[in-house]
Protein backbone atom coordinates (compact mmCIF):
# COMPACT_ATOMS: atom_id res chain seq x y z
CA UNK A 1 0.00 0.00 0.00
CA UNK A 2 1.32 3.46 -0.82
CA UNK A 3 2.11 5.95 1.93
CA UNK A 4 -0.63 8.17 0.58
CA UNK A 5 -3.25 5.44 0.93
CA UNK A 6 -2.03 4.64 4.43
CA UNK A 7 -2.39 8.30 5.39
CA UNK A 8 -5.95 8.38 4.04
CA UNK A 9 -6.85 5.40 6.22
CA UNK A 10 -5.08 6.97 9.18
CA UNK A 11 -7.11 10.12 8.61
CA UNK A 12 -10.35 8.15 9.03
CA UNK A 13 -9.10 6.60 12.26
CA UNK A 14 -8.00 9.93 13.69
CA UNK A 15 -11.31 11.55 12.68
CA UNK A 16 -13.25 8.83 14.52
CA UNK A 17 -11.21 9.51 17.67
CA UNK A 18 -11.38 13.29 17.44
CA UNK A 19 -13.25 15.33 19.98
CA UNK A 20 -13.37 18.45 17.83
CA UNK A 21 -14.21 19.24 14.24
CA UNK A 22 -11.44 20.29 11.87
CA UNK A 23 -10.57 20.21 8.20
CA UNK A 24 -9.23 16.68 7.92
CA UNK A 25 -8.14 17.15 4.32
CA UNK A 26 -5.29 19.25 5.71
CA UNK A 27 -3.84 16.24 7.49
CA UNK A 28 -0.75 14.99 5.69
CA UNK A 29 2.58 13.29 6.34
CA UNK A 30 3.99 16.41 7.98
CA UNK A 31 1.17 16.75 10.48
CA UNK A 32 2.30 16.00 14.01
CA UNK A 33 0.39 13.41 16.03
CA UNK A 34 0.29 15.87 18.92
CA UNK A 35 -1.45 18.52 16.82
CA UNK A 36 -4.23 16.02 16.12
CA UNK A 37 -5.15 16.05 19.80
CA UNK A 38 -3.33 12.92 20.97
CA UNK A 39 -1.38 13.32 24.17
CA UNK A 40 1.21 11.07 25.72
CA UNK A 41 -1.45 8.63 26.97
CA UNK A 42 -4.28 8.85 24.43
CA UNK A 43 -1.85 7.71 21.76
CA UNK A 44 -2.59 4.22 23.11
CA UNK A 45 -6.15 4.62 21.81
CA UNK A 46 -4.78 5.45 18.39
CA UNK A 47 -2.52 2.41 18.50
CA UNK A 48 -5.45 0.13 19.28
CA UNK A 49 -7.43 1.48 16.32
CA UNK A 50 -4.49 1.44 13.92
CA UNK A 51 -3.77 -2.20 14.69
CA UNK A 52 -7.45 -3.07 14.22
CA UNK A 53 -7.75 -1.16 10.96
CA UNK A 54 -4.59 -2.54 9.37
CA UNK A 55 -4.78 -5.98 10.96
CA UNK A 56 -1.16 -5.93 12.06
CA UNK A 57 0.60 -5.88 15.39
CA UNK A 58 2.94 -3.02 16.10
CA UNK A 59 5.50 -2.54 18.80
CA UNK A 60 3.83 -0.03 21.12
CA UNK A 61 7.13 1.69 21.87
CA UNK A 62 7.68 2.33 18.13
CA UNK A 63 4.25 3.89 17.75
CA UNK A 64 4.65 6.10 20.81
CA UNK A 65 7.99 7.30 19.42
CA UNK A 66 6.45 8.48 16.11
CA UNK A 67 6.21 12.24 15.80
CA UNK A 68 4.29 12.77 12.57
CA UNK A 69 1.59 11.04 10.57
CA UNK A 70 4.26 10.32 7.97
CA UNK A 71 6.42 8.53 10.57
CA UNK A 72 3.46 6.37 11.47
CA UNK A 73 2.68 5.61 7.83
CA UNK A 74 6.31 4.63 7.32
CA UNK A 75 6.17 2.34 10.33
CA UNK A 76 3.01 0.69 9.01
CA UNK A 77 4.59 0.24 5.62
CA UNK A 78 7.60 -1.44 7.18
CA UNK A 79 5.28 -3.80 9.02
CA UNK A 80 3.58 -4.86 5.78
CA UNK A 81 0.59 -2.54 5.52
Amino acid at each position, binding site marked *: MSEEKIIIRLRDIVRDNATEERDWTQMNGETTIKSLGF*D*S*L*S*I*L*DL*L*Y*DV*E*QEFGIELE*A*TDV*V*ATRTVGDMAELLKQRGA
Partner: protein
Amino acid sequence: MWSLPAPSVTWPSYSSSAEPSRLRHLSEYLLLRAALAVVDRVSVGAAYRFSRALADLWWVVDRRRRRVARENVLESGIETDPRRVRALSRRSAEHVGMVVVESLRSAEVLAEDRWREHIQLEIPADVIEVLEDPEQGLIVASGHFGSWEIAAQLLSRFKPVAGITRPMNNPRVEELILRRKPRYRFHPIPKYGADAGRFLEVLKSGEILALLTDQHARSGGVAVDFFGRPAWTYTTAAMLHLVTRAPLCFASCRRLAPMQFELSTSPLIQRARSGRKKDDVLAILTTLNEYLEAAIRQAPEQYIWGHRRWRD
Protein backbone atom coordinates in the same frame (compact mmCIF):
# COMPACT_ATOMS: atom_id res chain seq x y z
CA MET B 1 -3.45 6.23 38.79
CA TRP B 2 -1.19 4.73 41.41
CA SER B 3 0.28 7.78 43.05
CA LEU B 4 2.89 6.30 45.28
CA PRO B 5 4.24 6.79 47.87
CA ALA B 6 4.09 10.53 48.36
CA PRO B 7 0.40 11.32 48.53
CA SER B 8 -0.13 10.43 52.16
CA VAL B 9 0.65 13.97 53.18
CA THR B 10 -0.20 16.95 51.03
CA TRP B 11 0.50 20.51 51.93
CA PRO B 12 -1.79 23.35 50.98
CA SER B 13 -0.47 26.39 49.17
CA TYR B 14 -1.07 29.70 50.90
CA SER B 15 0.90 32.35 49.14
CA SER B 16 2.70 33.06 45.95
CA SER B 17 5.33 35.39 47.38
CA ALA B 18 8.74 33.85 48.01
CA GLU B 19 9.34 34.97 51.62
CA PRO B 20 6.13 33.66 53.25
CA SER B 21 6.55 30.51 51.18
CA ARG B 22 10.07 29.98 52.54
CA LEU B 23 8.84 30.58 56.09
CA ARG B 24 5.91 28.26 55.58
CA HIS B 25 8.12 25.54 54.13
CA LEU B 26 10.51 25.89 57.03
CA SER B 27 7.75 25.73 59.63
CA GLU B 28 6.16 22.71 57.95
CA TYR B 29 9.55 21.03 57.81
CA LEU B 30 10.21 21.69 61.49
CA LEU B 31 6.76 20.46 62.45
CA LEU B 32 7.31 17.29 60.46
CA ARG B 33 10.74 16.78 62.05
CA ALA B 34 9.10 17.12 65.48
CA ALA B 35 6.35 14.66 64.55
CA LEU B 36 8.91 12.20 63.18
CA ALA B 37 10.97 12.49 66.36
CA VAL B 38 7.90 11.33 68.27
CA VAL B 39 6.97 8.59 65.78
CA ASP B 40 10.53 7.25 65.72
CA ARG B 41 11.04 7.09 69.46
CA VAL B 42 7.84 5.47 70.59
CA SER B 43 6.38 2.00 70.16
CA VAL B 44 4.36 1.26 67.05
CA GLY B 45 1.19 1.26 69.14
CA ALA B 46 1.98 4.70 70.52
CA ALA B 47 2.89 5.96 67.02
CA TYR B 48 -0.47 4.74 65.76
CA ARG B 49 -2.25 6.49 68.65
CA PHE B 50 -0.33 9.69 67.99
CA SER B 51 -1.16 9.60 64.26
CA ARG B 52 -4.79 8.84 64.96
CA ALA B 53 -5.00 11.75 67.35
CA LEU B 54 -3.56 14.05 64.67
CA ALA B 55 -5.97 12.60 62.11
CA ASP B 56 -8.89 13.17 64.49
CA LEU B 57 -7.82 16.77 64.85
CA TRP B 58 -7.58 17.11 61.08
CA TRP B 59 -11.02 15.50 60.75
CA VAL B 60 -12.52 18.07 63.10
CA VAL B 61 -10.81 21.00 61.35
CA ASP B 62 -11.30 19.96 57.72
CA ARG B 63 -15.02 20.41 57.37
CA ARG B 64 -15.11 20.03 53.61
CA ARG B 65 -13.25 16.71 53.62
CA ARG B 66 -15.50 15.48 56.43
CA ARG B 67 -18.60 16.31 54.43
CA VAL B 68 -17.23 14.63 51.29
CA ALA B 69 -16.34 11.49 53.27
CA ARG B 70 -19.82 11.24 54.79
CA GLU B 71 -21.50 11.81 51.44
CA ASN B 72 -19.34 9.18 49.77
CA VAL B 73 -20.00 6.59 52.47
CA LEU B 74 -23.73 7.24 52.13
CA GLU B 75 -23.60 7.11 48.33
CA SER B 76 -21.74 3.81 48.42
CA GLY B 77 -24.50 2.28 50.52
CA ILE B 78 -21.94 0.66 52.82
CA GLU B 79 -23.54 2.42 55.79
CA THR B 80 -26.85 4.24 55.96
CA ASP B 81 -27.31 4.98 59.65
CA PRO B 82 -26.05 8.57 60.18
CA ARG B 83 -24.15 7.67 63.35
CA ARG B 84 -22.37 4.77 61.68
CA VAL B 85 -21.65 6.91 58.62
CA ARG B 86 -19.98 9.51 60.84
CA ALA B 87 -17.99 6.86 62.69
CA LEU B 88 -16.81 5.21 59.48
CA SER B 89 -15.70 8.46 57.88
CA ARG B 90 -13.77 9.35 61.05
CA ARG B 91 -12.05 5.95 61.12
CA SER B 92 -11.18 6.45 57.48
CA ALA B 93 -9.40 9.70 58.42
CA GLU B 94 -7.56 7.86 61.20
CA HIS B 95 -6.57 5.22 58.67
CA VAL B 96 -4.76 7.91 56.65
CA GLY B 97 -2.72 8.73 59.75
CA MET B 98 -1.94 5.04 60.22
CA VAL B 99 -0.80 4.72 56.61
CA VAL B 100 1.67 7.54 57.21
CA VAL B 101 3.10 5.74 60.26
CA GLU B 102 3.29 2.48 58.32
CA SER B 103 5.05 4.22 55.50
CA LEU B 104 7.58 5.88 57.79
CA ARG B 105 8.25 2.68 59.72
CA SER B 106 7.99 0.30 56.80
CA ALA B 107 11.64 -0.76 57.22
CA GLU B 108 10.57 -2.67 60.33
CA VAL B 109 7.98 -4.60 58.36
CA LEU B 110 9.88 -5.14 55.16
CA ALA B 111 13.29 -6.22 56.48
CA GLU B 112 14.59 -9.19 54.51
CA ASP B 113 14.45 -11.64 57.40
CA ARG B 114 11.20 -10.42 58.96
CA TRP B 115 8.64 -9.46 56.34
CA ARG B 116 6.99 -12.88 56.41
CA GLU B 117 6.16 -12.32 60.09
CA HIS B 118 4.23 -9.20 59.10
CA ILE B 119 2.69 -9.92 55.72
CA GLN B 120 0.53 -12.77 54.48
CA LEU B 121 0.53 -13.26 50.74
CA GLU B 122 -2.61 -14.31 48.89
CA ILE B 123 -1.38 -14.39 45.32
CA PRO B 124 -2.75 -16.84 42.74
CA ALA B 125 -0.36 -19.12 40.87
CA ASP B 126 -0.75 -17.33 37.52
CA VAL B 127 0.35 -14.01 39.06
CA ILE B 128 3.25 -15.66 40.94
CA GLU B 129 4.42 -17.11 37.64
CA VAL B 130 4.59 -13.62 36.12
CA LEU B 131 6.23 -12.17 39.24
CA GLU B 132 8.95 -14.81 39.07
CA ASP B 133 9.61 -14.36 35.36
CA PRO B 134 12.21 -11.60 34.98
CA GLU B 135 11.27 -11.09 31.32
CA GLN B 136 7.60 -10.48 31.96
CA GLY B 137 6.16 -7.05 32.77
CA LEU B 138 3.05 -6.78 34.92
CA ILE B 139 0.43 -4.06 35.29
CA VAL B 140 -0.82 -3.94 38.88
CA ALA B 141 -3.92 -1.83 39.46
CA SER B 142 -5.12 -0.81 42.89
CA GLY B 143 -6.95 1.94 44.76
CA HIS B 144 -6.51 4.14 47.81
CA PHE B 145 -7.30 1.22 50.05
CA GLY B 146 -5.29 -0.31 52.86
CA SER B 147 -1.57 0.31 52.98
CA TRP B 148 -0.72 0.70 49.31
CA GLU B 149 2.79 1.87 50.07
CA ILE B 150 3.60 -1.35 51.90
CA ALA B 151 2.13 -3.23 48.93
CA ALA B 152 4.34 -1.47 46.40
CA GLN B 153 7.48 -1.90 48.45
CA LEU B 154 6.78 -5.58 49.11
CA LEU B 155 6.01 -6.26 45.45
CA SER B 156 9.35 -4.73 44.59
CA ARG B 157 10.96 -7.70 46.34
CA PHE B 158 9.74 -9.78 43.39
CA LYS B 159 10.71 -7.37 40.65
CA PRO B 160 11.23 -3.61 40.33
CA VAL B 161 8.08 -1.52 40.66
CA ALA B 162 7.43 1.84 39.02
CA GLY B 163 4.53 3.98 40.17
CA ILE B 164 3.39 7.53 39.71
CA THR B 165 4.14 9.86 42.58
CA ARG B 166 3.00 13.37 43.21
CA PRO B 167 5.92 15.43 44.50
CA MET B 168 5.08 17.47 47.57
CA ASN B 169 4.72 21.22 47.24
CA ASN B 170 7.29 21.71 49.97
CA PRO B 171 10.75 20.69 48.69
CA ARG B 172 12.24 20.44 52.21
CA VAL B 173 9.50 18.04 53.25
CA GLU B 174 9.85 16.11 50.01
CA GLU B 175 13.58 15.68 50.57
CA LEU B 176 13.09 14.58 54.16
CA ILE B 177 10.45 12.00 53.26
CA LEU B 178 12.51 10.66 50.37
CA ARG B 179 15.56 10.35 52.60
CA ARG B 180 13.67 8.41 55.22
CA LYS B 181 11.67 5.96 53.18
CA PRO B 182 13.15 2.63 52.27
CA ARG B 183 12.16 2.12 48.66
CA TYR B 184 13.79 -1.19 47.84
CA ARG B 185 13.28 -1.47 44.10
CA PHE B 186 10.48 1.07 43.84
CA HIS B 187 11.10 3.74 41.21
CA PRO B 188 8.85 6.78 41.31
CA ILE B 189 7.59 8.30 38.07
CA PRO B 190 6.79 11.96 38.78
CA LYS B 191 3.12 12.63 38.07
CA TYR B 192 3.80 15.34 35.56
CA GLY B 193 6.37 13.27 33.66
CA ALA B 194 4.14 10.22 33.24
CA ASP B 195 3.62 9.19 29.65
CA ALA B 196 2.95 6.06 27.65
CA GLY B 197 6.58 5.81 26.55
CA ARG B 198 7.80 5.58 30.16
CA PHE B 199 5.08 3.05 31.05
CA LEU B 200 5.97 0.91 28.04
CA GLU B 201 9.66 0.97 29.00
CA VAL B 202 8.76 -0.32 32.47
CA LEU B 203 6.73 -3.20 31.05
CA LYS B 204 9.29 -4.03 28.40
CA SER B 205 11.98 -4.24 31.09
CA GLY B 206 9.98 -6.94 32.85
CA GLU B 207 9.06 -4.65 35.74
CA ILE B 208 5.80 -3.92 37.53
CA LEU B 209 3.84 -0.83 36.59
CA ALA B 210 1.66 0.11 39.56
CA LEU B 211 -1.37 2.30 38.89
CA LEU B 212 -4.00 3.58 41.30
CA THR B 213 -7.15 3.57 39.21
CA ASP B 214 -9.60 5.24 41.59
CA GLN B 215 -8.73 8.86 40.94
CA HIS B 216 -11.20 11.14 39.22
CA ALA B 217 -10.32 11.34 35.52
CA ARG B 218 -10.39 15.00 34.61
CA SER B 219 -10.18 14.29 30.90
CA GLY B 220 -9.93 11.30 28.63
CA GLY B 221 -11.62 9.00 31.12
CA VAL B 222 -14.73 6.85 30.90
CA ALA B 223 -17.63 6.54 33.32
CA VAL B 224 -17.39 3.22 35.15
CA ASP B 225 -19.70 1.98 37.87
CA PHE B 226 -18.21 2.20 41.34
CA PHE B 227 -20.62 1.10 44.08
CA GLY B 228 -23.38 1.40 41.50
CA ARG B 229 -22.64 4.99 40.53
CA PRO B 230 -20.68 6.09 37.48
CA ALA B 231 -17.24 7.45 38.35
CA TRP B 232 -14.90 9.01 35.77
CA THR B 233 -11.95 6.66 35.50
CA TYR B 234 -8.62 6.84 33.66
CA THR B 235 -8.30 4.23 30.92
CA THR B 236 -4.50 3.82 31.09
CA ALA B 237 -4.40 0.44 32.84
CA ALA B 238 -6.91 -1.03 30.41
CA MET B 239 -5.36 0.48 27.29
CA LEU B 240 -1.87 -0.66 28.26
CA HIS B 241 -3.15 -4.20 28.74
CA LEU B 242 -4.98 -4.12 25.41
CA VAL B 243 -2.15 -2.75 23.30
CA THR B 244 0.84 -4.46 24.95
CA ARG B 245 -0.88 -7.70 26.03
CA ALA B 246 1.05 -7.27 29.29
CA PRO B 247 -0.60 -9.22 32.10
CA LEU B 248 -2.83 -7.24 34.44
CA CYS B 249 -4.11 -7.89 37.95
CA PHE B 250 -5.66 -6.04 40.87
CA ALA B 251 -3.82 -5.87 44.21
CA SER B 252 -4.69 -4.68 47.69
CA CYS B 253 -2.93 -4.65 51.03
CA ARG B 254 -5.32 -4.87 53.97
CA ARG B 255 -4.24 -4.17 57.55
CA LEU B 256 -5.11 -7.15 59.73
CA ALA B 257 -3.62 -5.76 62.97
CA PRO B 258 -0.98 -3.16 63.80
CA MET B 259 1.87 -3.68 61.32
CA GLN B 260 0.26 -6.91 60.09
CA PHE B 261 -1.01 -7.03 56.52
CA GLU B 262 -2.48 -9.27 53.90
CA LEU B 263 -1.26 -8.56 50.39
CA SER B 264 -3.62 -10.17 47.91
CA THR B 265 -4.02 -10.01 44.18
CA SER B 266 -6.71 -11.10 41.79
CA PRO B 267 -5.94 -13.75 39.21
CA LEU B 268 -4.69 -12.29 35.93
CA ILE B 269 -7.39 -10.30 34.18
CA GLN B 270 -7.47 -11.44 30.57
CA ARG B 271 -9.32 -9.52 27.88
CA ALA B 272 -8.68 -10.32 24.25
CA ARG B 273 -9.36 -7.45 21.90
CA SER B 274 -12.83 -7.58 20.41
CA GLY B 275 -12.33 -4.72 17.97
CA ARG B 276 -14.77 -2.63 20.00
CA LYS B 277 -12.35 -0.54 22.02
CA LYS B 278 -14.88 1.11 24.29
CA ASP B 279 -16.41 -2.23 25.27
CA ASP B 280 -12.99 -3.72 25.98
CA VAL B 281 -11.91 -0.78 28.11
CA LEU B 282 -15.18 -0.69 30.02
CA ALA B 283 -15.07 -4.43 30.70
CA ILE B 284 -11.55 -4.24 32.13
CA LEU B 285 -12.19 -1.15 34.26
CA THR B 286 -15.46 -2.58 35.54
CA THR B 287 -13.62 -5.72 36.64
CA LEU B 288 -10.97 -3.62 38.40
CA ASN B 289 -13.65 -1.59 40.18
CA GLU B 290 -15.41 -4.77 41.27
CA TYR B 291 -12.20 -6.05 42.85
CA LEU B 292 -11.67 -2.70 44.57
CA GLU B 293 -15.26 -2.68 45.87
CA ALA B 294 -14.83 -6.21 47.22
CA ALA B 295 -11.64 -5.17 49.03
CA ILE B 296 -13.34 -2.09 50.49
CA ARG B 297 -16.33 -4.11 51.72
CA GLN B 298 -13.91 -6.28 53.74
CA ALA B 299 -12.54 -3.25 55.61
CA PRO B 300 -14.44 -0.08 54.69
CA GLU B 301 -12.55 2.00 57.26
CA GLN B 302 -9.35 1.38 55.26
CA TYR B 303 -10.58 3.30 52.23
CA ILE B 304 -9.96 7.01 51.78
CA TRP B 305 -13.55 8.18 51.60
CA GLY B 306 -12.57 11.84 51.83
CA HIS B 307 -11.51 12.17 48.21
CA ARG B 308 -14.08 13.21 45.66
CA ARG B 309 -14.42 10.06 43.62
CA TRP B 310 -17.80 10.86 42.14
CA ARG B 311 -17.76 14.17 40.34
CA ASP B 312 -19.83 15.40 37.40
